[in-house]
C-alpha cells in the first residue's frame, strides 16, 4: 500500500495564500492548537504537500538527537552544563542526607495527596548497578505510556560520556565509549511520559571490576 500511496503522492508545490505560517506549523507539531484551529489546519495539510512536508520535516528535526539535546539544555537553563558536573556530587550529598536524616513519625505529607506522576512512573535502572564484570549495555524498566527514553552516562568527574534518546529500554554503549576498570560511573534515564514531560530515574552508580589475567 505504501508503494501505491508513495507513487501517487504529490510533490511539494509553490506556496499558496492559504499555506500555514511558521507559528501554525509549529503549533501543529506541538499539538497545542484548539480544536477549531486544528480542524482548519488539518483540512489544509491533507491537501497541501508543501505544508505537510514542512510539518513532517519539523517533526523529524525535533527528533534529531542533537536538536533534542539543545532544546533540553535551553529548557533546563544556562546552568545546565555546570549542573552536569555537579549533579553526581549533589546526588551523593543528597543520598548521605537521606541516610542520616532522623525519620519523623509524620513526614507532613497530606494523606489526601496522590503520589506525583514522577514518583509513580519513573524508570528504574536494572543494569549495570554497583560492581559488575562487564557493562556494555544499559538496561532499565519500561514506563507505561513512555514513547522515548533519554539515557545519560557520566564519569566520576561528572562529564557526560554517553547520551542517547531511543524508544527501547536497552542502550548498547558504542565502542568509542571505554569504561576503565575500577573507576566509578553514574547513569540515569529519563522517560518521556507526555509532550515535553519527562520522569527521571535516580542516578545509579556502578563500576567495572578488573578481572585478573590468568
Amino acid at each position, binding site marked *: 500500500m505504501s508503494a501505491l*500511496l508513495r*507513487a501517487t*503522492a504529490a*510533490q511539494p508545490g509553490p506556496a499558496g495564500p492559504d499555506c500555514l505560517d511558521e507559528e501554525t506549523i509549529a503549533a501543529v507539531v506541538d499539538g497545542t492548537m484548539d480544536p477549531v484551529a486544528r480542524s482548519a489546519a488539518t483540512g489544509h*495539510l491533507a491537501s497541501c*504537500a508543501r505544508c505537510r512536508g514542512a510539518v513532517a520535516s519539523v517533526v523529524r528535526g525535533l527528533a534529531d538527537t542533537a536538536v533534542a539535546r539543545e532544546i533540553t539544555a535551553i529548557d533546563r537553563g544556562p546552568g545546565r552544563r555546570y549542573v552536569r558536573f555537579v549533579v553526581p556530587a549533589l546526588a551523593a550529598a543528597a543520598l548521605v542526607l537521606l541516610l542520616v536524616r532522623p525519620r519523623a513519625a509524620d513526614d507532613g505529607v497530606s494523606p489526601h495527596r496522590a503520589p506525583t506522576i514522577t514518583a509513580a512512573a519513573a524508570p528504574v535502572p536494572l543494569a549495570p548497578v554497583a560492581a559488575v564484570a562487564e557493562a556494555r549495555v544499559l538496561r532499565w524498566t519500561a514506563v507505561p505510556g513512555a514513547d522515548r527514553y533519554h539515557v545519560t552516562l557520566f564519569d566520576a568527574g561528572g562529564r557526560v560520556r554517553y547520551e542517547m534518546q531511543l524508544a527501547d529500554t536497552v542502550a548498547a554503549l558504542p565502542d568509542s565509549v571505554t569504561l576503565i576498570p575500577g573507576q566509578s560511573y553514574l547513569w540515569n534515564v529519563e522517560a518521556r511520559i507526555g509532550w515535553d514531560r519527562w520522569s527521571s530515574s535516580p542516578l545509579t552508580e556502578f563500576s567495572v571490576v578488573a578481572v585478573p589475567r590468568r
Partner: protein
Amino acid sequence: MVEWTVKLEAGDPDGAWDLFVERYRRLIFAAIRHYTTEHDEVMDVFAQVCESLRADDLGRLRRYLTQRDHRARFSTWLVTVVRNLTVDWFRHRDGRQRLSAIAAELPPLQRRIFECVFADGRSHVETYELLAAHEATGLSFGAFLRELRATYRAVAARRKGALMAELWGPPPPPEVEPAVADTLAQGEQAARLSEALESLAPEDRLAIQLFVVDDLPAADVARVVGLPNAKAVYNRVYRALAELRVRLERAGISGVDL
C-alpha cells in the same frame, strides 16, 4: 521572562541579539546540521538565518513576541523558522541553472524524469503517464520505477537524503510488486486511487499520508492529527485503509495488497 526579550522590549535590539545568539546558537546550528553537515553550507546557512532574524531590528522575533497568545513553544517555532530558511537557501542556491547542470550528466530518460519530478514538481505517476504517452511509448511502469530510483540515487550522491526529501518529497518505494506496477501503469486507475484518497475525511487522509507516506512515528502523527495516542493512529489508519480498499474495489481496482 527570558533576558533577551527584556532587552528587546527595553529598546536594545543589539543587546537582545547578543543574548539571543548566546542562548540559541547551538540549537540553530543543530537544526541546520539536521539538513546538511558540509561545513561551508552550515556556515552559509547560519549566516543567512542570522541575517534574516536580525533584519529590521529583529523584526521577525519582535513580531513573534508581540502576538497575544502563543500556540507553539518558542523552540519549536525557531526550529520551524530555521528549517524554512535552510530549505529556501538550498532552493535559491540550487536554482534552475544548477538543476540543469545536474540533469546534463544524466542519461536522456533519467534527465526527463529529473526535469518532471525535481524541476516541475510532478508526482511519480504523473511523470510516468507523461513520458509513456508522449516520449517513451512502451515504457513499462516497472522499468520507469527503476529509472526513477536511479535518478534519485544520482541526485542523492550530491545531496543528503533528508534534504532531498525536503525539496522534492519522499523518494519512490525501493521495490514494487508486479501487481502494484500493473495497477499504476494504468493511469486512469492511478487517478481513481487519488480520487479515493481525496474522498476520505481530511483527518484520515492526513493520518495516512504522515504515517504511511512520510513514515513518521505514530506518536508524532497522533499529536499532529489530534489523536490521544499512537494506538489511536494505528486504529485510524487501519480503518481508513480498509475504507480506501473498499472504494478502490468499487472503482475496479483489486488484486493489490492494500
